């Protein structure tokens, strides 16, 4: 008898199929429940974790057999240029607002992390581990590594910041009266990087385009500012 572990080790698409099926089920459950916490990604994550535990498949085997999907992350990021170009006039009209708000958000992010890490008495290593949590994973890992953080924990923070933004955006926008599509997209991309941008795309194409732009701008600004902030704790 072959075990599920064998299938995941030897079949290149097992993880890919599991991931997509879990997401489709997640989307279906989300539609039935109409609940912001039960979002498709969270449901998919829980289903996959349960599946791997139940059939005794280790994470490495799952990761390897889902690489086919992850492989398309770079071209998909490149494609974010398309909605951005389609909304070019909006970008030009609002250039000042875009640059200022993303810059302000980045500074607030860095300053608030610094203050809260001080308040909790966290070490320098933990501080630089959390610092890049609002930027896209490859940038965040690079920053954490360069400044001497715990890279795996940085990835965990990035995942949490992304999914938190994904879940909370609707409520946050309602409470604070953030209605402008451009502002919503920028807020999501700046706080929750690529996962936030995916949420922004659900609001609409304008939101999605601005999310992609904020994600790129926030990443570049954080790369430039991180070494300076790292020296403060």
């Amino acid at each position, binding site marked *: 008898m072959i075990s599920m572990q064998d299938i995941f080790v030897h079949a290149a698409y097992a993880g890919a199929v599991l*991931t*997509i099926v879990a*997401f489709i089920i997640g989307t279906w459950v989300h539609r039935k429940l109409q609940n912001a916490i039960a979002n498709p990604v969270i449901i*998919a*994550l829980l289903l*996959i*974790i349960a599946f*791997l535990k139940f059939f005794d498949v280790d994470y490495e085997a*799952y*990761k390897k057999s889902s*690489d086919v*999907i*992850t492989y398309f*992350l*770079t*071209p998909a990021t*490149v*494609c*974010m240029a*398309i909605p951005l*170009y*389609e909304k*070019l006039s909006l970008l030009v009209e*609002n250039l000042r*607002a875009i640059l200022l*708000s993303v810059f*302000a*958000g*980045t500074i*607030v992010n860095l300053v*608030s*992390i610094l203050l809260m*890490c001080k308040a*909790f008495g966290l070490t320098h290593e933990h501080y630089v581990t*959390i610092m890049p*949590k609002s930027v*896209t994973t490859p940038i965040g890992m*690079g920053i954490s*590594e360069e400044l001497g953080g715990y890279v*795996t*924990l940085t990835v*965990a*923070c990035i*995942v949490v910041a992304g999914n*938190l*933004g994904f879940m909370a955006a609707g409520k946050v926008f309602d409470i604070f009266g*953030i209605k402008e599509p451009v*502002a*919503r997209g*920028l*807020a*999501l991309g*700046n*706080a*929750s990087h*690529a*996962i936030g941008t995916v949420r922004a795309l659900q609001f609409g194409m304008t939101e*999605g385009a601005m999310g992609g732009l904020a994600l*790129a701008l926030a990443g*570049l600004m954080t790369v430039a500012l991180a070494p300076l902030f790292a020296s403060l704790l």
Partner: protein
Amino acid sequence: MKYLTELVVILGFSLLGEVVKLLIPLPVPAGIYGLLLLFLALVFGIVNLGQVAHTGHYMIEIMIVMFIAPSVGLLKTWSILSEVLIPYCVVVLITTVGVMVVTGLLAQWLIRRREQR
């Protein structure tokens, strides 16, 4: 040929991004360089929208499932994460919502102020 052309343009810009990444020693992923390059190529008419739009929108639509597998990796860090769980959760939660509110409110205020003039 249409889809093949679109695919090769998109993969081509991914490749260009990777080459730029080799040249610039910053922790910026190839995808971000590729995004900026494709955007400039569209603005300057080197690539037109019809050469990338269909496959591009398809990639963006399926992008969400690309984040699921890496997120499952959280499992592996659980033993280390559980020791610092509370401060980490508090910091990440508050600062993430904070950035979202500041960015969104400031952008909205600036946009509306410009529109009123």
